[in-house]
């Protein structure tokens, strides 16, 4: 019997991997998300040793290796420190679906935040050429009754016109 030739046709199989998730907020992130939902307030936590803010708050200060226990309100306005204008459509692992482009994300130093902490969120602006570091921006909240205790309770940040 002649040797069996290897296949020229190459088989592939497409697959959408999908896993249900139950994400715990923990007390620290929970307090932050509930403040967004119930009070439309952005709460940072503060390191008791070095005094820097973390927003969103995290369990410990990574620099000092101590629990960051105190909370302080920051924002809702702040200064645009850096930003990305995204033209490349990629899948959102929360849905598996491709995102719509372009969109902008922003690192905002919220008023009252200490130690250079910035907060990452979406920036809503149709004229991308307006974007530059140092612009004043503010958080726009989802309306009452529609907030769910999620980061998207802040719909986006927008440029405050007329402020340097």
């Amino acid at each position, binding site marked *: 019997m002649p040797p*069996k030739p290897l296949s020229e046709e190459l088989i*592939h199989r*497409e697959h959408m991997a999908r*896993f249900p998730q139950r*994400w715990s907020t923990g007390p620290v992130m929970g307090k932050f998300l509930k403040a967004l939902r119930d009070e439309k307030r952005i709460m940072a936590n503060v390191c008791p040793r070095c005094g820097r803010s973390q927003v969103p708050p995290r369990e410990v200060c990574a620099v000092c290796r101590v629990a960051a226990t105190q909370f302080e309100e920051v924002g809702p306005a702040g200064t645009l420190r850096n930003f990305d204008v995204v033209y490349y459509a990629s899948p959102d692992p929360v849905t598996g679906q491709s995102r719509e482009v372009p969109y902008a994300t922003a690192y905002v130093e919220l008023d009252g935040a200490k130690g250079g902490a910035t907060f990452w969120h979406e920036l809503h602006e149709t004229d991308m050429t307006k974007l530059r570091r140092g612009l004043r921006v503010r958080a726009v909240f989802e309306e009452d009754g529609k907030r769910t205790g999620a980061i998207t309770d802040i719909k986006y940040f927008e440029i405050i016109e007329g402020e340097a």
Partner: protein
Amino acid sequence: MAAESDAFVVEGTFALPYNYFAGRVGSTWLVALRDEQKIYGVRHPQTGKVFVPPRQVDEKDFTDLTGDWVEVGPEGRVTGFTVIRYREPYQPLPVPFGLALIQLDGADTSIVHVVRGEDLGQLSVGRRVRAVFARERKATILDIAHFAPV
């Protein structure tokens, strides 16, 4: 201070798309299931051992195994089994179904496949089974729809 009462659980999803490639060795085997309704193994040129599923090399000595394809089965014997009674979205049959290690005639290793067609209580080691091919075949291992007792 944040307290346990501040914590809550968010339900969500994690989802990403994939596209897997069987490779040339795997494709050879899968295409044969689809087009020939035949099951092949690969024979080790020195030891003569026949491996199913096929693989490019013997993991123990790195000998190339892709040169000598031999037909195995379609009958074989059950070398181990379980009856799956819990339900998962990825299972190929409704539960309960038999999941068995099957050593195909001519092979030295067993493959795992599903068994149906009789009272699952009668499933036993040594039982002769035969591959039942699917009518619609797509070059997957489920082109063998299941194994049935001979």
